[in-house]
């Protein structure tokens, strides 16, 4: 499962994980949209905490959901963004449309301990 969805107190949170590119985005989009259609959440939270890689397809995913939320006045948050993810979201101007929250320094510190291949 590339995305876990959780609905509580008017907030639909999509916990994204793994690599987000054009290839994987289609399935993520399908699952998130299915939930959104059912619930029409006042707030959609996209949680990037477990995302190990993303390219601009992930920004497209965020912008696409933003447009849907706009249609009925919903709000968007993108949280636990890595520095790279944050930089990419800013290139798109999303900071003016959605609430963007980077990972905290302590979360980033813990990540540095991991070994990468």
């Amino acid at each position: 499962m590339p995305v876990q969805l959780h609905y509580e107190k008017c907030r639909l949170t999509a916990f994204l994980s793994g690599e987000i590119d054009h290839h994987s985005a289609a399935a993520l989009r399908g699952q998130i949209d299915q939930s959104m259609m059912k619930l029409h959440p006042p707030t959609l939270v996209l949680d990037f905490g477990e995302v190990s890689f993303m390219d601009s397809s992930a920004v497209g995913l965020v912008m696409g959901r933003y447009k849907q939320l706009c249609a009925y006045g919903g709000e968007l948050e993108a949280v636990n963004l890595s520095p790279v993810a944050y930089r990419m979201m800013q290139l798109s101007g999303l900071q003016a449309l959605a609430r963007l929250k980077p990972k905290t320094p302590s979360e980033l510190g813990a990540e540095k301990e991991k070994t990468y291949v």
Partner: protein
Amino acid sequence: MKHTLINQVKLEMDSRSVNEGFARAAVSAFAAQLDPTVEELTDIKTAVSEAVTNCIVHAYPDTRGKITLWVRVYGDGLVRILVKDRGCGIADIAKAREPLYSSLGEERAGLGFAVMESFMDKLSVRSRAGAGTSVTLEKRIKGRAQ
């Protein structure tokens, strides 16, 4: 400045979206010989993912074509990556490179070229409508030594 070529690899793949992940992993594995930092490798993977995705999504929209990757590493830490397709080509390169411009709307952010430009040191695009597109990405690896 003269760059001395120390190693190179050429790959040819079908324009299938499952190859986006393969392409960036392959380039990243090859570039690892320059002892890059994790951040430098992420930049390279992201730029390659953008260039290869463009071949799949834009160059060959309704057909299956070939994508060529040519990675060269140089003695001074330079990595030069050519991503080439023989697809539809780009009529107006300046417009295509504008941030947020996409000919496909909806789910495309129009940020591919902007990301390649900001994550690499140099981006050059050559294209002819109907003949194909060549994207060259360059980055000087400073590496873990610094």
